[in-house]
């Protein structure tokens, strides 16, 4: 039987994150907070987009928030930007699992760049509403809060997203609407961690594209013949590596601008 090593590893990491989000109710000191800001074994981590919204609103960022945000931004910058979406985000895990429903693959899709517009809208809304707009309605925050404080009415928003993704538009939240995904795709553009491509091994069977929910990113190597995936939209999830029967794709570090 073929083992999907990358997907397996990814599920382990995703479930570890869920486990960490659950630990505060057990009273352990290991982890505190959620994906907006957390303390892991004393290490302060913060969402850089949250810090950016606070900066826009108040003109300053408290030092603990700033330090944690820079650490996280640097980490994801090194490891692929949208690795957050593929490996860490609990909402990503949920929508990922719902994609196992075969019917979802037949649905229409929205273009990827919707996220950048959503990011812009969120920053503008923050300024007009005088609140960090994304942090307030973030379905990622809602899922985290449901895990650490128990489920509540705000999960309706997450249910609505799932409903649209199962019935109307394939992966519309992660592909086209999540401002945080849009933000991290900017970091992904300059990240050294890439999906590499060896044209001589490729049979153009198209299985990689079928396994990928942002399959547009594979056009650069497959159609234009680049040596790696260029787009920042790639979540480095490794599904294409699992799908490729000839080993034409690999995960590697390389000079980001080459």
């Amino acid at each position, binding site marked *: 039987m073929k083992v999907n090593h990358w997907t397996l590893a990814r599920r382990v990491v995703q479930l570890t994150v869920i486990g960490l989000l659950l630990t*505060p109710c057990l009273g352990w000191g290991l982890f*505190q*907070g*959620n994906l*907006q*800001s*957390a*303390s892991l074994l004393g290490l*302060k981590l*913060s*969402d850089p987009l*949250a*810090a950016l*919204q*606070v900066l826009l*609103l*108040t003109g300053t*960022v*408290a030092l*603990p*928030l700033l330090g*944690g945000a820079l650490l996280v931004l640097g980490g994801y910058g090194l490891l692929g930007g949208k690795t957050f979406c593929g490996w860490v985000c609990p909402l990503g895990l949920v929508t990922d699992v719902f994609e196992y429903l075969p019917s979802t693959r037949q649905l229409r899709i*929205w*273009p990827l*760049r*919707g996220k*950048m*517009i*959503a990011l*812009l*809208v*969120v920053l503008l*809304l923050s300024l007009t*509403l*005088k*609140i*960090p*707009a994304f*942090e*307030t*309605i*973030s379905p990622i*925050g*809602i899922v*985290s*809060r449901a895990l*650490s*404080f128990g489920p*509540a*009415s*705000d999960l*309706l*928003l997450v249910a*609505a997203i799932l409903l649209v993704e199962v019935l109307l538009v394939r992966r*519309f939240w992660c592909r*086209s*609407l999540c401002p945080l995904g849009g933000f991290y795709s900017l970091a992904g553009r300059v990240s050294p961690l890439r999906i590499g491509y060896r044209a001589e091994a490729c049979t153009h069977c198209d299985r990689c594209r079928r396994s990928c929910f942002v399959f547009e990113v594979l056009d650069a190597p497959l159609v234009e013949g680049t040596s790696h995936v260029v787009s920042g939209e790639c979540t480095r999830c490794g599904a294409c590596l699992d799908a490729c029967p000839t080993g034409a794709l690999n995960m590697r570090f390389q000079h980001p601008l080459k």
Partner: protein
Amino acid sequence: MSEERRRAVITGVRAALTGAAAGYLLLRSGSGYAWLLRPPGAVEEQEFLRKCIRCGRCAQSCLYRAVDMGRLDAGIALGTPVIRARKNPCRLCADLPCVKACPSGALDPQLQDAVKTRIGTAVLVERQECLSLKGLRCEVCYRTCPLLDKAITIENYLNARTGRHAIFEPVVHKEHCTGCGICEQACVLDRPAIVVGPLQPPSESLYEG
């Protein structure tokens, strides 16, 4: 701009606007709260809403689980920390773990001394219901106050109704009251006669025009 590109941009704009509109309606629908009791050190409410990134660390650091997170019915305060004093008031921990946990400065780290907390102030709102004011010896709010004889004192005077007994009235002193809400929780009435309200009562401008 190519036709395909143009269509893609239009879809994107539509998606973003739908999301923004949905979020706005969602938040508008429930912002009916007059005011919210925040954890110790909370900066002024407008500033608090700007600074709080809804990470929940103050709530997780609270040993008494007194800090709850605002849900959908909290409107624009969705995901922010709230204390519901009647259910579970702030215990004014001397080491202020909630303030220490806050990464964003929404809870002001300058607050080092728990008794200097000013998250609200107790008010004897239902004076006609208060047992003490009816001439009975209740004074539960006074006895449970962590700042006994400072934030709440007992003033006694002649019970004019009977003409021969005393009234032992609990009197709140704003300059000492932290707004912890322990008195609100302790009040023996079904509907508490003493509740924590905002430090600054709603301004008179509300009645203009």
